[in-house]
């Protein structure tokens, strides 16, 4: 399932940090719009490079990226060092 919310937390040992819950669904809408805008250029590049090889790969980029974004839910990365604590989590 596509992640709807991303938690981003940066907490330095000294000073103030932040803890954000971002509605990434809005970002996906922007990403989709951007990909749609780029589609004619990608298709043109795929057409021009079809014979030399990478054209077919270029056509696959969209579904592959979609697959990665769609399955980001559950990704959790947490790094704690002596200076700070960083966390991001897709839900």
């Amino acid at each position, binding site marked *: 399932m596509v992640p709807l919310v991303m938690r981003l937390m940066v907490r330095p040992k000294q000073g103030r940090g932040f803890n954000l819950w971002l509605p990434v669904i809005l970002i996906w809408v922007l990403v989709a719009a951007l990909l749609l805008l780029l589609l004619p250029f990608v298709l043109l590049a795929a057409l021009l490079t079809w014979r030399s090889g990478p054209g077919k790969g270029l056509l696959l980029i969209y579904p592959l990226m979609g697959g990665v974004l769609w399955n*980001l839910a559950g990704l959790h990365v947490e790094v*704690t060092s002596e200076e700070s604590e960083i966390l991001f989590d897709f839900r």
Partner: protein
Amino acid sequence: MNEEKRKILDMLAQGKITVDEADRLLAAIGADTPGTPAGASGRPAWKYLRVQIEPGPGSESGDRVNIRVPYKLIKAGLKFASFIPREAQIKVNEALREKGMDFDLSKISFGDLEEIVANLDDMTVEVDGQDKVRIFCE
């Protein structure tokens, strides 16, 4: 245990069906039979790959890392393997050969990678050095 699986096992216990028939019926309802490798039914036995790094007893840094990667994300990411340029594959093969591993990356298909990843459920890697590294599936 669900109802269908129980009925099949009951019929097997009563001698109404043979072991082979029970195996086929269990496979048909999607139940994993004993001895079936994880992932053979298309579903892996794990959902997340975990990587944990913690400072060991002799560690000077207190850095900790905790990463959880969903299986589906790894599976989706594996498809990008087809984008590895041929030249890069040749370089990797040469580097592996230098280290004594006669290995050809181009011979590994997406299906092979998917099968390896799906069967990682029993894998646990533990490295005890300055830092304690633990890689496992859950």
